């Protein structure tokens, strides 16, 4: 047999990569306690900046000192019209009613490009940064000096679900690991008794594609997003509560004996980490049974705080509660929370998919988003958390600067250019990155791909996006595939 050197991450037991593969496949899930000891024993912990309170973190991470220690993604699915919200286009007023020309063949999703349509909303400058924001967001407008705007996002698909998948996972296909899963896999957690990646769906329903949006893909299953059920009377996560029919005394006795039995079995296989971890996992499960109910209980939140998030307003309370819960989860060590402002496609519209009547749609969705999202930014700031917390907001794409069909009152999907924003740690506050052309159709300068956007998020979390990899079928896979550049201009 020829001597070939393999590039395999799992070939030589001694190689660093081998350990990675092993950890990925076998032991990251221990609630990571056994893992931590394993790292110590193997001497890998020196390589990593490993605060004693963090477990399950990949060796080598962070790759550099992170600006943000935790992260929230507010996702507004359906396609938020950039030219009606954050991307001010005065030229569009002049060109109102004219056909868009000079941009090649117009190829919107439903194939009926209408005429250019000026913004349905008035724009005004806000804050010291003088950022233009439409009247749709009076509350967010007061936060502009803490926000950083990206005006030239470009995505691959003009179809909702592939585009949502790309925003969430970097790929337009099903079952690739989502950003939250990658962070869970890379960062581990400071709190073993809470999930590492929590999803708070819109109270009106899950987004299109459902749980595929927070799939772990080929990463180990524990990195899958945990969608909290937030309705009254529901357990936040499956199997959390010991059934009422089982008495505490009986459960305690059973657990004591289980521990003994499991220790005896593990004793037959000295050095088997998995078996040691199983014993530990029952202790962590018990902790989870108290820590999750505590996290979702708002008793300790002041009336003023609750009011700020809109909890006193029946319409806003659903999303408002989720924003507040997101903050509470971050406080308790959950590294990544995704909050949905919008559900699936369909009728009546419960997301931003404004084909028929943009004003009617965006008025409704915008008012749901505005106050709670602004409250979250302000609340994080007043608690000093915004300094090392990253908040980012996005839709999956924007909407066409022209109407859908002549005489239409709505706009079609637009993947060629749209706006997102971030706020918090490590960013230039009040900064606007990239510019679209005079009508908001295409980037004029500094196009930002979703890969770039993801690379920047990982960068702020202390991760080099080219080095957060997982071996799967032939490649060391990445969130950013083989693409992506950190948007350095947007960083402080």
């Amino acid at each position, binding site marked *: 047999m*020829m001597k*070939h*050197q*393999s*590039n*395999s*991450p*799992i070939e030589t037991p001694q190689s660093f990569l*081998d350990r990675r593969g092993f950890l990925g496949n*076998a*032991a990251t899930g221990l*609630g990571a306690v*056994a893992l931590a000891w394993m790292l110590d024993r193997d001497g890998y912990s020196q390589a990593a900046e490993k605060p004693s309170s963090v477990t399950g973190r990949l060796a080598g991470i962070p790759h550099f000192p992170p600006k943000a220690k935790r992260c929230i993604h507010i996702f507004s699915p359906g396609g938020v019209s950039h030219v009606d919200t954050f991307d001010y286009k005065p030229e569009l007023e002049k060109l109102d009613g004219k056909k868009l020309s000079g941009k090649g063949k117009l*190829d919107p*999703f*439903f*194939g*009926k490009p209408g005429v250019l349509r000026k913004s349905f909303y008035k724009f005004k400058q806000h804050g010291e940064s003088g950022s233009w924001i439409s009247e749709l967001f009076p509350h967010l407008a007061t936060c502009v000096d803490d926000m950083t705007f990206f005006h030239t996002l470009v995505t691959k698909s*003009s*179809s909702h*679900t*592939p585009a949502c998948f790309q925003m969430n996972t970097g790929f*337009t*296909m*099903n*079952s*690739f690991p989502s950003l939250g899963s990658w962070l869970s896999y890379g960062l581990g957690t400071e709190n073993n008794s809470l*999930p590492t990646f929590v999803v708070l769906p819109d109270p009106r329903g899950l987004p*299109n*594609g*459902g*749980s*595929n949006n927070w799939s772990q893909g*080929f990463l*180990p*299953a*524990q990195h899958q997003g945990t969608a909290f059920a937030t309705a009254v009377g529901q357990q936040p996560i499956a*199997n959390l*509560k*010991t059934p009422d029919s089982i008495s505490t005394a*009986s459960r305690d*006795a*059973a657990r004591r*004996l*289980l521990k003994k*039995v*499991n220790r*005896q*079995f593990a004793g037959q296989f000295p050095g088997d980490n*998995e*078996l040691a971890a199983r014993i530990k*996992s*029952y202790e962590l*499960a018990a*902790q989870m049974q108290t820590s999750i109910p505590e996290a979702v209980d708002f008793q300790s939140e002041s009336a003023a705080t609750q009011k700020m998030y809109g909890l006193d307003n029946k319409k806003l309370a659903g999303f408002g509660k989720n924003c507040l819960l997101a903050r509470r989860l971050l406080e308790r060590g959950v590294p990544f929370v995704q909050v949905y402002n919008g559900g*699936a496609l*369909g009728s009546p519209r419960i997301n931003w998919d404004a084909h028929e009547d943009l004003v009617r749609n965006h008025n409704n969705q915008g008012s749901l988003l505005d106050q709670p999202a602004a409250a979250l930014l302000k609340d994080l700031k007043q608690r000093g958390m915004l300094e090392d917390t990253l908040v980012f907001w996005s839709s999956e794409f924007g909407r066409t600067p022209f109407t859908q069909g002549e005489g239409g009152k709505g706009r079609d999907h637009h993947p060629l250019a749209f706006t997102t924003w971030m706020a918090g740690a490590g960013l230039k506050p009040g900064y606007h990155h990239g510019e679209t052309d005079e009508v908001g159709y295409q980037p004029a300068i500094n196009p930002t791909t979703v890969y770039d956007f993801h690379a920047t998020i990982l960068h702020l979390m202390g991760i080099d996006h080219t080095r957060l990899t997982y071996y799967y*079928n*032939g*490649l060391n896979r990445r969130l950013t595939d083989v693409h992506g550049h950190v948007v350095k201009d947007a960083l402080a």
Partner: protein
Amino acid sequence: MKPVFIALFFSAALLASVSHARAERDAAPFGKSVAPILIKNCLGCHNPTDPKGTLDLSQKKAMLKGGDSGPAVVPGKPDESYIIERVADGSMPPEGKGKRLTKTEIDTLARWIKAGMSWPKGRVLSALELTTDKRAGVDWWSLQSIVQPAIPQVENSEWPETPIDAFVLSKLEERGLQPAQPATKRTLIRRATLDLLGLPPTPTEIDRFLADDRPNAYRRLIDRLLASPRYGERWGRHWLDVVRYTESDGFEHDKFRPHAWRYRDYVIDSFNADKPYNRFVTEQLAGDVLQPVTRGGLIATGFLVAGPWDEVQYVAASQAERKRAHEEQMAEILATISQSFFAMTVDCARCHDHKFDPFPQADYYSMKAVFDGVDHSQGRTVGNRSILTAAEKKQHAAAIAPINQRIKQLQSQIAVIENQLPQPATLADVKRLSDSLVPGKFGKALNTKVNTASLASQGVFHTPPFTVECFAKLNSKADFNVLVANNLKSSAAHWEIYSFAGEGDFSAYLPGYKPNTVRSGVNITDGKFHYLAMQFDGKQLRLYVDAKLVKEATLLKQAGTEDVGQLYLGGYPPHKIGCDGVLDEVRISRGIRPIDGIPPGPWTADENTLGLWRFDKINHNQFANFVPSQSGKNAKQLDTERQVLNEQLQVTQQELKSHTIPLAYIGYRNQPPPTHLLLRGDLKTPGPEVVATGFSNITTPNPQFGLSSKSPEGSRRLKFAEWATSPEHPLTARVIVNRIWQYHFGKGLVKTPSDFGFNGGLPSHPELLDWLATDFVRHGWSIKHLHRRIMQSAAYRQSSAINQRAAELDPDNRFLWKFSPRRLEGETVRDVLLAVSGELNHQIGGPSFQPFTVTVFNTHFYHLFDSEKSQYNRRTVYRANVMTGRSPLLDAFDCPAPSISAPKRASTTTPQQALALMNDSFVLRQAERLATRTQETVGGDANKQVQQIYQRALGRTPTRSEATDMVTLVKQHGLKTACWVLMNSSEFLYLK
């Protein structure tokens, strides 16, 4: 053994025609010493496709021509040759691109230049030829032909029981290691049963095996297990992992695939039947064109479309979006094929030559040409297809023709009677009877905001001339308000009167005519009763509001089928179009009834009245029709006759149903246009046309199929399958043998079972892998033979006990000094719980059980429930494998996401996993059932109970101290608590 190294030299440009370019053409010194230096160090950048600095070093001519910096060489003068200057000063290869050349290598190049640069005629070098420390070449180990190695000699000649053991022991001895002791018989039967069946042995089976002293007891055990239908359920699931089997579409709708299960059953049946693997592969790639075509062959191609499908690509009008989605779909299919059967990632060569393995970009598109005719759907028509063979189709047609004939006859008989009977209108929502009647124009009226009514329509209702009248009060013009609609909109016999959305004007719609829409422009949605009428004589259509003619139009009849369906009153339920208001007094008349004033009182029927409904009274969910019977027979007699006929009709329709054509989700095949390479994978930049071939980096079997872009798509897949299953193929047998080994030992000889390329692992026992592969092919590609080979080995039968010294030298047990214990997979955990509790439903095959309800809000949402009913207690492989309907219990035990290939299961330990076993209602129920079952067998004695649950759950008796602990628990907290402990125990969850 020392496998022969065959140097296969290819030229990139000639990869498509590999018959040339052979080693013998490359005479020394160029072929043996110079070419490798250039290939390994220079060609990566200086190749004809994208020459860095415009310098191409693949051919002599190009080398002499040079690049941006002038000629690379001056023949005869190494000192003046630029190439020597750059490699000597170390600036080439640049840092990060390769290692500095050694002095010997530089000398070799210099001597060759000095001697005049001999270069075999026509020889073009390619970076893909040779393996370097950055990438694999055509000489990569897994691409070389398999030669059966000799069985090695070992020192400890006592231990080996099979050739496998000689290979294993030889590696152990090289490292100074010894194998572990044999496992006990009790361990062995549990291991073998869980391994082959995914279920635990019963206490009786254990006792029987322990009592069997015959020398071949173990062999008989394996034979028994392999003959069990449970075997296919277990090993079929392994294959379903590899082929990303999903039972829903994913993407936006994630629709359930009700006919996908047939492929799952095909896989299970194939394993149970020990279908030769070469046949298994061929059927999945091309079973639909494999003569003679069989049902199994058709179903097998469900493999091609077992992944996700984006239906919304066909909603898009955007051509770019459609093409993008289709191209992604094709890439998904090609990735699955190349990884599943060949452990190669050809899909990584979609945008450029493969970065790590010897696949030029053309290989991706040549493979695409093979499968370009495969699609999930035809447009939005879902790929559920008949699996009847041609002969069966004929039989089927013959069988149903007379039944259809009878149905038609009965229907027309019934129609004749119904035409003589006044038809009452039946209310749609029987739960809303109380608020369906409201005050009307005359007496009561139908509240169309909450209910609609309908009846079987009649041909006369749409035979011109006719007149339709009604009274209606409408509240809103936001949406359409349908007053009266006759037949489905798809029928040319459809007509309806309604108010138009937005404007609220009285309108008529007749899709069988042109124009199909007639609008009056008169708003009738003002919350007041209006008298509305439509007259139609087949050409002229007139609309009246309050007896005033408001619109007249001329219509032209169009071709179309005039299907008769229902007459709908107060809405159009098939499209969920309602009517926000009140409907009173509907009358349909033969001929043109003069409209000459608003009727002052309730209407009556005359000889021209075809239907009259007054909506004053509900009788048995119905509104009476006030048309008098027109036959001599009285209505009651007619009604009885109709009932008899209706019963006959139902029986006949039931009979037709029993002839329903069986469907499977196998997608569509279409003859594709010529396939083009796409530069940078971009649809906007098509490159040269390619034809269907195998991999260019394999010479034997020949990857050239002699096909053109006109060859039928089925023949391409068939040729490809023949090539893939050639006994000489270097990958097919190696890959499956390694997969089977992995499932037995927890780890493959190659640890990356779907990647035998540069980024994958190297085999720990390369000779053993090749020996198994040749043995496998020689034994008819029999997987059951392979199981016997492996399980008979002493290596497999070792105990899992730790050996401290070996653990230090080989912590990963790569060299098999013991049997590695491992946690059961999610499906097995669930199946074992059911088996132990006695609740397992052994039903084999058929549609999946669906432990969820579904709501649809564009996306299909799956809401899980837990049920104790037997139909939900089938083995987990029969659980509907829906992408967004995954189970928290199975997820916690690492069941992979459907729709993505899982060549290897993860084995994690998480608090969520503990929570699932602690509190999941399914698990708790199984603990309870085990307790009940045990009490029924052994009665109330706690000692006996404890003995029994240990036997059932763990297949052994408890030690004395275990028994004492457990009995105490039983006495204090009940038997089910003790069962819970065992079902949560590591021993229960581990195969050792």
